[in-house]
């Protein structure tokens, strides 16, 4: 074996990256992952390029990935020669051109829009002192948003592919032993020890073994895998190559959702670049080890996140799970032993080998080691991706790091683990985030999606939503999953419409148990979790729906009514009238407004439109408590458009 020394590989990339790092011209980096683009990062990018040209300001404008701070997108990092890089949040094209003129041209850091400095600086405080950054421990996200994901040199300059180089000099058993020492567990949901999975795949004798990166991220509300692949794809490719080396695989696939076009483009480019540089393909870095990597576009079926269904879909079948054993580690894709790992697991593999097992094992709890990336969305203030060590409490994550609940509302529950997970109430906010603690609370780690809910969210409706999702995604193979979830959905639908009966709760619990027992894969096995946890922690809410036709959170539309309080409504004000999509609001002889309940679709638009000094529109549940209207709606029913 005559391996190319790593220093030689890295030097060239470092030289090239140095030009950027020790920039002689101003450098502007715009975060253009999907979330940034959705908030207008493309316009900012174009504006920066055009403005710098128009004003004759010499500056390099680059696209980078996502820092995970979705609440402040689009984000721009501006680095002037010889100063620390500064981070600007909520940048619009106009703000962008102001930054260009005021900071890049005139040298005034423009504190109004500044979030902070990314390196120690005399003028501007560090962003890492802000709570949202301070509590984070960025391992997987270390480089996300700070390097150009389409430029392999950026990655190599940050010790990229060092871990693979090191792994190629190690015996496969030693690699697996190192992963075992790190205590790494699969980040895809179930938390199976990674080393055991690798060992199992390696132990089966075969002419060929296969490794697959499972990037079929389907949980609604979780998007960290997409973000990681869009921001730093090489890190995952490197982890996959290390896994291939450890189990002795010569073929690899990235199974990525077709719904993620940008991630697909960046991963394709990363595979091409890595192959061209000799980090993939034949005789990797002169080690004699081959790995051919292909991108497979998943066609969007939630169940394909399950290993055997994923394999079926790659073989051109409907993505239906099959019975295990044999496990894919024994008989997987085309009958070959196959190792399937999640995106985050593979990203962590790179860090275990690059740094050491201890570096990961030193973080987290006794049984759950390392860090985990969560996506926090819903009613939480500073939404986005957060990477924290395992064992952090939910309270700390939601309140200390992400700034608590939006609009000063009260916290109600956090939904963890997507459709397979559960809702955790306020009383359990001090639960530590690790596989066991979440499991005993009735939820599960899942892929790390967290949806925070406030007092205006109805837990029955949330349960119904998740069952509707799993029902639609059930592949139909097992009767209990196919029909049981359908029955469950109908019962829950009835309850949210006020048509539930007192025996429904018992029936729901029975059905939940039957579905769990009667399903082959985890989609069915965990489908009742949202129902069971909401029943466990919020049974009162179910009872209010059934017994009183009342939705305590004022959300279930069949059980609420919007009502304009005559005393608060300002005569002559027309603010709500034009916003009503069904023209249900009419004017009374007092020139005050009232709602025709027969026409109202309860969209809530009038609440938003009513000026805050009046706040005349309220929600009432149950509907029978709506006071009788002072004047009946006009015969023709408000078809005439006011104003």
């Amino acid at each position, binding site marked *: 074996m005559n391996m190319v020394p790593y220093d030689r590989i890295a030097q060239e990339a470092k030289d090239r990256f140095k030009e950027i790092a020790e920039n002689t011209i101003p450098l502007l980096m715009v975060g253009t992952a999907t979330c940034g683009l*959705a908030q207008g990062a493309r316009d900012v990018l174009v504006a920066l390029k055009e403005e710098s040209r128009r004003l004759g300001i010499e500056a390099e404008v680059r696209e980078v990935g996502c820092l995970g701070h979705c609440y402040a997108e689009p984000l721009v990092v501006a680095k002037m020669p010889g100063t620390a890089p500064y981070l600007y949040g909520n940048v619009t094209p106009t703000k962008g051109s102001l930054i260009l003129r005021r900071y890049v041209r005139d040298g005034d850091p423009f504190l109004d829009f500044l979030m902070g400095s990314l390196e120690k600086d005399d003028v501007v405080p560090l962003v890492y002192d802000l709570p949202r950054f301070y509590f984070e421990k960025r391992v997987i996200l270390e480089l996300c948003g700070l390097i150009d994901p389409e430029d392999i040199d950026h990655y190599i300059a940050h010790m990229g592919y060092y871990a693979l180089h090191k792994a190629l000099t190690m015996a496969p058993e030693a690699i697996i032993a190192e992963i075992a020492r790190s205590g790494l567990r699969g980040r895809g949901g179930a938390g199976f020890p990674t080393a055991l999975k690798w060992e199992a795949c390696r132990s089966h004798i075969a002419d060929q073994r296969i490794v697959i990166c499972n990037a079929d991220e389907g949980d*609604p509300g979780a998007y960290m895998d997409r973000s990681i692949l869009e921001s730093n794809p090489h890190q995952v490719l490197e982890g996959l190559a290390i896994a291939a080396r450890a189990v002795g695989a010569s073929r690899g696939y990235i199974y990525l959702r077709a719904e993620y076009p940008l991630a697909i483009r960046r991963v394709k480019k990363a595979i091409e670049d890595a192959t061209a540089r000799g980090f993939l393909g034949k005789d990797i870095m002169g080690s004699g080890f081959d790995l051919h990597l292909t991108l497979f576009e998943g066609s969007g079926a939630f169940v394909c996140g399950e290993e055997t269904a994923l394999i079926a879909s790659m073989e051109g079948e409907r993505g239906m799970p099959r019975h295990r054993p044999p496990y894919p580690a024994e008989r997987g894709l085309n009958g070959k032993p196959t190792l399937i790992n999640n995106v985050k697991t593979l990203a962590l593999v790179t860090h275990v080998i690059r740094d050491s097992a201890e570096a990961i094992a030193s973080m987290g709890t006794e049984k759950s080691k390392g860090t985990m990336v969560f996506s926090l969305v819903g009613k939480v203030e500073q939404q986005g991706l957060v990477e924290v060590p395992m064992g952090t409490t939910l309270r700390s994550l939601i309140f200390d790091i992400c700034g608590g609940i939006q609009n000063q509302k009260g916290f109600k529950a956090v939904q963890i683990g997507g459709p397979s997970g559960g809702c955790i109430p306020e009383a359990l906010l001090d639960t530590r985030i690790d596989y066991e603690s979440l499991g005993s609370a009735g939820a599960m780690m899942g892929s790390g999606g967290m*949806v925070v809910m406030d007092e205006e969210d109805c837990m029955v409706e949330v349960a119904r939503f998740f069952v509707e999702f799993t029902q639609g995604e059930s592949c139909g193979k097992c009767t209990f999953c196919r029909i049981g979830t359908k029955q469950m959905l109908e019962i829950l639908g009835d309850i949210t419409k006020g048509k539930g009966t007192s025996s429904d709760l018992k029936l729901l619990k029975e059905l939940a148990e039957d579905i769990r027992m009667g399903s082959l894969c985890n989609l069915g096995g965990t489908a009742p979790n949202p129902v069971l946890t909401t029943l466990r922690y919020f049974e009162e809410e179910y009872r209010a729906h059934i017994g009183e036709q009342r939705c305590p959170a004022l959300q279930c539309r069949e059980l609420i009514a919007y009502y304009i309080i005559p005393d608060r409504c300002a005569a002559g004000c027309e603010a709500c009238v034009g916003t009503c999509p069904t023209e249900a609001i009419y004017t009374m002889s007092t020139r005050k407004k009232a709602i025709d309940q027969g026409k109202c679709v309860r*969209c*809530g638009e009038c609440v938003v439109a009513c000026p805050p000094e009046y706040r005349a529109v309220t929600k009432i549940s149950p509907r029978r408590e709506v006071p009788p209207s002072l004047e009946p709606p006009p015969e023709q029913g408000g078809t005439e458009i006011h104003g």
Partner: protein
Amino acid sequence: MESSLSRGGETIADKVKEILLSFDGRRENLIPILQKIQADLDHVPFQAMLHVAEYLKIPVGEIYGVVTFYNQFRLKPLGKYNIKVCMGTACHVKRSYIIMEEWKRRLGIQEGDTTDDGLFSLERVACVGCCALAPVMVVGHDGSETFYGHAMTSKVNGLLMEFQRKEAGRPPSE
């Protein structure tokens, strides 16, 4: 659907045969083939499935089974303005169903349908992965999509008017 039958002077059969040339006849290639067909023809017509069945030597019923199993594949062409409403968890708790209803009401079609003039189609998507912007609407076709975050029913009306104005050849309202 004259446009899809004779896109660029080619029939579906010609196009599909051309696509099949770049794949060998292994079953594993079924999904990539279907993806390519949809990328080129905007949907997977039944006629195309017949050609694929012949090429891969599997029953057409099985291909239909695969096409209808996965969310990605469509049997009908999309409208010129394809509107997707995100129905993920984060969007749901921010009342995305009201947005969906408003589109249905305004367009007079159901989810998965296209308006008779072929201008608008309406889809629900499970999660587009930008939950911080919830509720989210996406307008456009694969690869050239525009995201609209923090959707409201009034935004739906505004957008619709914008599109209709554009179609009528009138300048945008602003």
